[in-house]
């Protein structure tokens, strides 16, 4: 503490510029591919393979026009993905919040065993499950149904959601719930008026992570959905990439990537404060 504040107190201009340099390098490293995609999405197919073209003849909006004029149009996939991801998030939170509360209240030994099991489930490579899941979809006729696909998505997100939310409940001081009890609040009233508001940051970051998982998921979507108007983004984008045997439509593909990233960017920008405080946790003070 003292050491850190001492060094912070002695920051020289040279040190500052060196630090900014590192931050700049880091940003370039992580953002350059995205910038490349953004540029590519506005570049004509010719310009992508030919660097002799003049600067002014390289740019086009055709990639986006192509993307939105296909049948079904690209926004349809955006809508599908939004629907699936929202449903998944909702279902996961509805199940994981009461479950995490229960887990946090269990006696220590039982909690340890269950936590180990949940961590195991969270680390399990879920790709190994997709054949079994496909079998389930066949048996219960859940294929080609955007609402039904939220079920396996929620199940796959559950371990991570449980870990994050259980930790959040455990971080709350016991006295708070005891005080609410003595105030005459029933279990549901305590959850609604005291506990849920206090774990809101953790819930927000959990929601974002679950939403992201559902947005990006590929193998299950590939096997559960086959009707072209029901595809989710990742599957639809893979189809664009493989739509022509003789050429790869880089421009269109880049445009799809940009459009597909926008909803997530908005979401993260809106909730960034909650995400950070939820992930670092311990944000609750009396």
């Amino acid at each position, binding site marked *: 503490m003292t050491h850190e504040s001492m060094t912070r107190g002695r920051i020289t201009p040279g040190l500052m510029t060196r630090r900014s340099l590192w931050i700049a390098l880091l940003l370039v490293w992580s953002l350059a591919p995205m910038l490349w995609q953004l540029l590519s999405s506005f570049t004509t197919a010719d310009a992508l393979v030919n660097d002799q073209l003049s600067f002014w003849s390289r740019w086009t909006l055709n990639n986006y026009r192509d993307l939105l004029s296909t049948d079904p149009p690209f926004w349809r996939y955006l809508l599908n993905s939004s629907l699936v991801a929202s449903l998944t998030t909702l279902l996961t939170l509805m199940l994981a919040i009461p479950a995490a509360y229960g887990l946090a209240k269990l006696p220590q030994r039982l909690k340890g065993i269950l936590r180990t099991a949940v961590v195991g489930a969270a680390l399990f490579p879920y790709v190994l499950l997709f054949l079994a899941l496909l079998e389930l979809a066949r048996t219960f006729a859940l294929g080609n149904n955007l609402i039904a696909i939220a079920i396996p998505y929620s199940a796959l997100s559950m371990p991570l959601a449980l870990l994050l939310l259980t930790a959040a409940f455990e971080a709350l*001081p016991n006295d*708070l719930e*005891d005080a*609410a009890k*003595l*105030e005459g609040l029933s279990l549901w009233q305590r959850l609604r008026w005291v506990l849920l508001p206090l774990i809101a940051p953790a819930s927000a970051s959990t929601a974002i992570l679950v939403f992201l998982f559902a947005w990006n998921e590929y193998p299950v979507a590939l096997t559960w959905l086959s009707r072209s108007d029901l595809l989710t983004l990742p599957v639809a984008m893979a189809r664009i990439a493989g739509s022509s045997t003789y050429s790869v439509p880089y421009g269109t593909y880049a445009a799809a990537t940009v459009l597909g990233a926008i909803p997530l960017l908005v979401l993260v920008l809106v909730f960034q404060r909650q995400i950070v405080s939820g992930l670092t946790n311990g944000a609750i003070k009396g």
Partner: protein
Amino acid sequence: MTLQLRAINKRFGERQVLHQLDLDVANGECVALLGASGCGKSTALRLIAGLDHPDQGSIRINGAEMVDVPAERRRVGMVFQSYALFPHLNVWDNLELGLRMRGGSAATRDERIRGVLEVLQLSGQARLRPSQLSGGQRQRVALARALLRDPLVYLLDEPMSNLDAQLREDLRPQLRRLMIGGEQPVVYVTHDQQEAMALADRIAVMREGRIEQIGTPRELYLQPASTYVAQFIGRPQMNLLPARDGVITGIRPDDLRLDPAGSPCTILSREWFGANQMLLVRCDRGDLRLVCPGETAIEAEPRISWPGTCEHRFDAVSGRRLPSDRLPSD
């Protein structure tokens, strides 16, 4: 209104926290549970509140059995050591939440909250979050919440141990005015004997899950039932002389006096507090603490004595008080 505990047993795993605990608190009476940490005093409070369940025994409030009544419906007002204010709500909402959940019209709610804020001088802080309040203000909000609960019993769990000494002294009269001596029984848990003596009608000194002695502060001070109680009540601590013929003799530091005809001793240390001073002296019977007025001049080698009527005699093995043939000195 009365509170009655009968033969309460509670164990956590291997540890027996409370043994056959009996306790009666009368209407308007304040009983302090006093003891070192881990003696079971807080557990007893949580059992009364319904936050923990006793293994055996009965808890009655106004004659009604409470053991199977959940905490939500027991109507107890509790003040926590940590205050346990809801950090996401401002003072007003903290106080209103319970009232709203329990029902009742909005107008009466507003009136009651406004009244209690007025009494506790918190009207200006109604829209502040707990994190924006000082320790003393938080404590008063916690008191206000307990008052608004309109409880059958008040339970106070070391309500002042997070405050500095000055604030504690300021809050004691408020506490007495608002909670203690009303209609309800009050159980006050503390490890501070001074606080217990200042506020409680009776003090129960607890040790290892049992009540070692219960009585008025005066009884405990003048006739401690064991060496444990003797050392817990009264500051500075009672002097316990090494056992002779199976008897430990105890003398309060304020009963010792400087006496030219007494036994000689040497001064080991001296603490001066203004109104009085405390000396640690070594004599042939061992080391003794002595309290005398602050302006008394102290020789390098004083002589001390004590009246025989001030001696407390305890069994050296059990530590229990031995019956004395003389009358208590009160």
